[in-house]
């Protein structure tokens, strides 16, 4: 592991030549094929030609200017020797148990600081041809598949996304072949080495025709209490393809180090009669800006975006979503439910865009924010741009405190106020949490909600993260 000097400033200048050299070194250390290095370098050039956000752009106006860094640095490079361990099926996790790790699963990839620490694939998954391994390995072992789908969601939407395609040091590839049906979920776990600086992740998820698969993408930090000199940037690109007739569920749960600045770009493409549900649960980080984009250009496609968060301290939690309807007869639904305590702030930009081709679209958005403390605030901004007439489209947004009627009802039954409030809040979040495809993960999310709401009252906080 080579460690760059950490500089305490938020933004930093880009050093193109250094990045070109580092990307090349990284790709070679991971024993990636030449075409993947070419992809990285082309993405890097693309990123270099773009500009950072200024705060004037509509979807950036509410992002705290000094807390989400404009920088592209590779803080750590895996050394060739211990870099890419080939994923081998059947190997039980060797790294310390991750708190998010499941009891039962169809497959597991666990990475820490750019290293693979565990991987596993169930017999059932292997038998139906499911591939689940680090992206570099997949590119080497399944080049046609990876090459076909990598970047297939379209060109990068901004500079972060473009850098993300170039600089990633850990990534995963999921492929479910046509007709494959998995009962259990696949788990992609990332443990943030908070002290090691910025991280760039890249996940590519493909559910081929008529397949049914669920992936849990869970991020945690090795030491959530460390006082870091510089806030680490955590960037994630997630590209999701649900081919015709596929049913794909993707749930991401993050509890990054509290000083982190997290930005992600999750882009899903929904095929004909396919279903894609993206669930995002946010707990950690100082700033978390999640961009989620659903491309619904095929008839009968159905997409869902579900967001859940509990903010505390002065956290800023932002969702920028787009439901893009460019084909006939697709449906989509967005549902965000957030709880804000202390001085935390939430922003939701949600756009439903229906092009003239999007006739018979049925698209909806709902954003609900519960404010539990005086300093908390929420800016829900649900937007509609509709260019087809035969559509059903709606949005709703609400901001307010815990419903006093519900509190009264519970208190009248002898439940103390603070417990009653917690019950109402959990009930409020349950609609999202219950949609997470794995029971173990639902329990974890439940637990994280508890911890985030009442840190002093739980005994689980010290079990938070290991690794």
């Amino acid at each position, binding site marked *: 592991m080579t460690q760059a000097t950490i500089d305490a400033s938020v933004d930093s200048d880009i050093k193109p030549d250094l990045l070109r050299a580092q990307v090349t070194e990284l790709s070679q250390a991971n024993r990636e094929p030449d075409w993947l290095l070419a992809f990285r370098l082309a993405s890097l050039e693309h990123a270099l030609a773009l500009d950072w956000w200024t705060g004037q752009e509509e979807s950036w106006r509410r992002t705290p200017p000094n807390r989400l860094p404009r920088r592209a640095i590779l803080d750590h490079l895996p050394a060739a020797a211990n870099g890419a361990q080939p994923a081998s099926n059947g190997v039980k996790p060797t790294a310390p148990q991750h708190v998010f790790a499941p009891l039962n699963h169809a497959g597991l990839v666990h990475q820490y600081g750019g290293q693979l620490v565990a991987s596993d694939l169930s017999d059932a998954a292997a038998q139906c041809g499911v591939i689940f391994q680090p992206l570099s390995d997949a590119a080497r072992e399944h080049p046609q598949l990876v090459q076909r789908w990598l970047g297939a969601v379209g060109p990068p939407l901004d500079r972060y996304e473009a850098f993300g395609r170039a600089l990633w040091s850990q990534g995963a590839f999921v492929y479910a072949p046509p007709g494959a049906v998995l009962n259990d979920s696949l788990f992609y776990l990332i443990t943030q080495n908070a002290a090691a600086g910025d991280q760039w992740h890249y996940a590519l998820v493909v559910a081929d025709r008529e397949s049914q698969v669920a992936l849990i993408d869970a991020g945690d930090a090795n030491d959530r209490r460390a006082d870091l000199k510089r806030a680490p940037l955590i960037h994630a690109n997630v590209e999701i393809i649900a081919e015709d007739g596929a049913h794909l569920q993707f749930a991401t749960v993050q509890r990054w180090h509290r000083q982190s600045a997290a930005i992600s770009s999750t882009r899903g493409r929904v095929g004909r009669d396919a279903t894609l549900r993206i669930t995002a649960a946010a707990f950690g980080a100082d700033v978390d800006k999640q961009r989620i984009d659903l491309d619904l250009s095929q008839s009968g496609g159905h997409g869902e975006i579900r967001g859940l968060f509990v903010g505390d301290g002065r956290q800023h939690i932002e969702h920028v979503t787009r439901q893009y309807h460019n084909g006939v007869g697709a449906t989509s639904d967005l549902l965000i439910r957030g709880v804000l305590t202390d001085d935390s702030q939430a922003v939701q930009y949600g756009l439903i865009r229906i092009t003239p081709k999007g006739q018979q679209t049925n698209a909806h958005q709902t954003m609900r924010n519960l404010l539990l403390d005086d300093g908390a605030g929420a800016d829900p*901004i649900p937007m*509609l741009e509709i260019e*087809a007439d035969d559509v059903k489209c*709606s949005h709703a947004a609400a901001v307010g405190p815990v419903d006093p009627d519900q509190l009264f009802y519970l208190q009248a039954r002898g439940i103390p106020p603070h417990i009653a409030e917690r019950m109402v809040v959990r009930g409020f979040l349950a609609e999202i949490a219950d949609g997470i495809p794995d029971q173990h993960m639902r329990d974890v999310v439940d637990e994280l909600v508890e911890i985030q709401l009442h840190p002093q009252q739980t005994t689980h906080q010290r079990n938070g993260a290991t690794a």
Partner: protein
Amino acid sequence: MTTPTVDAPVSSRSEYEFGFHDDVEALVKLPKGLSREVVNTISDIKDEPEWMRKLRLKALDHFNARPMPEWGGELGDIDFNDIHYYVRATDRDESSWEDVPDYIRDTYDKLGIPEAEKQGLLAGVGAQYDSEVVYHNIREDLEEKGVLFLGTDQALSEYPDLVREYFTTVIPPNDNKFAALNTAVWSGGSFIYVPPGVNVDIPLQAYFRINSEDMGQFERTLIIADEGSQVHYVEGCTAPIYSSDSLHSAVVEIICKRGSNVRYTTIQNWSNNVYNLVTKRATAYQDAVMTWVDGNLGSKLTMKYPAVYLMEPGAHGEVLSIASAGQGQQLDAGAKIVHAAPNTTSVITSKSLSMDGGRSTYRGLLKVYDGADGCRSNVRCDALMLDEHSRSDTYPVMEIDEKRVDIGHEATVSKVGDEQLFYLMARGLSEGEATKMIVNGFVEPIIKSLPLEYAVEMNRLIELQMDGAIG
């Protein structure tokens, strides 16, 4: 002088019945273009106090310094050098229609204004023709109670201290590019002062007419409702159809003092060659009620978001907005409500129609300041699409910094339902009739808040537009 002539329509709104213009030589028409000289000349013509001239010149600097807004509609086509900033047809602001020049009176006769006044439907009438107010009259009993209703220029010369006390306190010269432009070259508009406890029981109406080609109309309206008073102001706007574009950029400032109740109704029916870029804002103090009823049917591009700042507890703000966009039109309308004090309430109801390739947009802001606890707000926006060539956008922004609030927003976009159409057509209605009936039902919640004769007018205008769209 001359008889009005009707131009060949340049848009599909062949039914636009106010497309005629008077061929008259204006008394004063400043050359096209905007400069310090033009601003100084306007100030000279008006013989106004020095502070106003300084304010105008400062505003001109702001206008020149500010970039064009990059959101909303396409503003790049406006050529600020190809506009007459001041056109005066007559040198008098009369209080009797008999004294208004015949050709101008003819115009207002066609618009039915003197008739409505004669019938006692209005408490007062103002009429602005191009840059200047040509007529203002108010019922005697209201005048005796101290109600002021006159042109803003006249108010500035007769009540300079009153004007100066409130002018630009609600909308500063540098609020936005078009407010700056208005402050630099403003002319005309209504000034209303209602003394404490006085109830102006029937509406005051102002009628704005652009007659000249390549004209900019920049009226400035200031309404002060003193404690416990009540007033309803209605404005209508029309313009001839010319092949080149006109600019209408008004500023309206309203102060609703404690316990007052102000309603401001606009029926905007500019021809489809008018850029309508207007800033309207009201402040409402304790227990005051401010209501904007904003009907937008005409113009090429409208950008207008009537605002209410709720400054003290118990204030209530309401915006009822209706927009109907047809061919070649972009109506970017909406509302802003700012809850700056506890226990304030607001309601926004917006209904928009898009037809014949038109684009209607709801753009809104709902802001609750920290400490404004106990606020309640409900926002409801519905859009109806009448065909597949049109577009509807909804951009509501909510900024909520207080937890003890009850804020809800809902919006829908849909088309005229096949089931509804089928049901009505099965009862013998043609498709056109059935669609009109459904549209009537859709806009009804807003229409019913208008005085009867305006409700009838509004429905008629929407039907005319639909005739153009659905044939």
